């Protein structure tokens, strides 16, 4: 049996303003190492809400979340920040690169923050990641000089820098055209196969989801198929 890297046990969440609405109900699932999982569902079914809980950024929920078999319950803000830094890589719908820094520095930042490697090594590793994504020539440019597809690939490189146990994506292809979507998908696929990288991607792109290993389908805050 392969190693479980992410496990959700009975996760529930409600919004209380203006009236209490349950947005997530009895979410139970786990992700194994090396799996490429897509979460699909209609708008408003709670898939993004779930992702932010899984990513430790939203702490207002009930139930239990285990990342790398460690419970995230009762951890302090600074400890959760450390978990995000070390174990989770993010790719968002919007690239969220820092315009003040070069592409290379953007990729390096989480690595520098982790402080596991020396700045020189972090730089070398960042170049490696950019090479994997085929954008090593843009390393010294500023983010606003890049195309949308290139920016998203930089964001993926940034997610990879600390060799996270899982990469989470929130509609990573949502803003991209077909060609760029394909490139990003191929990158993910390659990471899953060659690097045994675990991926959990929220998307509403059915085509994208069908090409992944496993689909979790949500409706009205519940998992209806996995």
């Amino acid at each position, binding site marked *: 049996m392969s190693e479980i890297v992410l496990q959700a046990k009975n996760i529930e969440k409600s919004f209380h303003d203006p009236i209490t609405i349950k947005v997530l109900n009895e979410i139970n699932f786990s992700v194994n190492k090396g799996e490429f999982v897509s979460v699909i569902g209609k708008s408003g079914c709670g898939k*993004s809400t779930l992702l*932010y809980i899984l*990513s430790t*950024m*939203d702490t207002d929920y009930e139930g239990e979340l285990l990342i790398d078999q460690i419970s995230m319950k009762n951890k302090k*803000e*600074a400890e959760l*920040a*450390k*978990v*995000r*830094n*070390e174990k989770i890589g*993010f790719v*968002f*719908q*919007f690239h*969220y*690169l*820092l*315009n*003040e*820094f070069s592409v290379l520095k953007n990729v390096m*930042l*989480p690595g*520098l*923050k*982790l*402080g596991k490697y020396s700045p020189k090594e972090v730089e070398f590793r960042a170049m490696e990641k950019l090479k994997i994504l085929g954008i090593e020539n843009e390393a010294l440019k500023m983010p606003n000089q890049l195309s949308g597809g290139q920016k998203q690939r930089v964001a993926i490189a*940034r997610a990879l820098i600390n060799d996270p146990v899982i990469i989470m994506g*929130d509609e990573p292809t949502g803003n991209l055209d077909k060609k760029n979507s394909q490139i990003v998908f191929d990158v993910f696929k390659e990471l899953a196969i060659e690097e045994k990288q675990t991926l959990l991607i929220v998307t509403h792109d059915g085509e994208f989801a069908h090409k992944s290993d496993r689909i979790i389908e949500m409706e009205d805050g519940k998992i209806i198929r996995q």
Partner: protein
Amino acid sequence: MNTKLIFSIAKALMLARWKQTLVAAVGVVFSITMFVTLLGFMNGLNDLLDSLILNRTPHIRLYNEIKPTKIQPIDKDPNYKSSHNFVESIKPNGGRLEIYNNASIMSTLKKDKRILGISPKIAAQVFYNVGAIDMTGTISGIDVEAENRLFKFSEYVVGGNYIDLKNVPNSIILGKVAAEKMLAEIGDVIQVTSAKGERMQLKVVGYFQSGLQDIDKVQSYASISTAQKILGKTNNYITDIQIKLNDINQAPEMAREFGSIFEVDAIDIQTANSQFETGSDIRTLISYAVGITLLIVAGFGIYNILNMMIFEKMDSIAILKATGFSGKEVQKVFILIALSIGIVGGLFGLIFGFVFSFIIDNLPFNTAAIPTVKTFPVNYDLKFYLIGTLFSIITTYLAGYFPAKKASKIDPVIIIRGK
């Protein structure tokens, strides 16, 4: 490692909005410059005004006041010890202006370690005779060398050489205004009449200018022996002993001590000139208030700019937090920005403050009232620079603290989902 990273992020954020950063820094530079210059200038003026009086005033003055004796003969009579007496219309007995036994008092004082120096003095009321007109005046008989050493006498002598007062017999240094009225030139001989009616010819060897018009109109100086001659007294006649102490703060206490030991009246500088200290204190207070107000205004400028920066950089802050920076670290970044503005701005403020002080110090300032002063007075006390530095750091830290706190509380989920 982490600190270095926080520094580099803070630097990048500042450089990205370098115009705003510059404006904030200029605000600090301006306020620190004004703070240092203002305090330096104000205190320079304070020192000048104080020195006008305080330099010329003994720390303790021993003298005999003309006043009725407190203890009347009847108080000493043992027969009436338990009785109450009324004596009406008591008059002071005359001729007691002299300090008795002054030679031994002075030799005792000279041995006292707390005393920097003493200078005896005779105050003589005279009339300057100008043709048919008599003008009232005061001649102070002084020990020229001691007076110069303790009270910078030579600085106030504007014409002639002060030491001639000692070397030329029967000489006088006239008050500048009095001299103008008498049309007396250096080398002329003038005539004075003492209160007792004795006339005397005196040679003018210089002019004296204190800067206080009323004093210059009546005050003149002669040597002690000349003053004794004018008054027709013997050579042990002294009316005042002026004492300068090593520590001015001991004056009130020592004045009481000498008063009771030597049985003379003793007045200390604090009591005699309390209004000057009050004036100085209030001027200093005003300049501090203005300086600190300027700094607080600059602080609000920094606060606004940082708030705006945080509003603009919401996305960046959210992503920093999403990729593993804690709220504390984000807060550090913004406090660091504020402190950098404060420290760099403060440093330039100190430099400009010094330059401005230097310029003011070299501006010509000629006033007839104060002959020794040629340029505006400035005080370069290190204290003002230290206070300026301290305040620039404290105000910028506070100005940065609240926006930084706000930045640390930004919820990345709200920002990221908002797109």
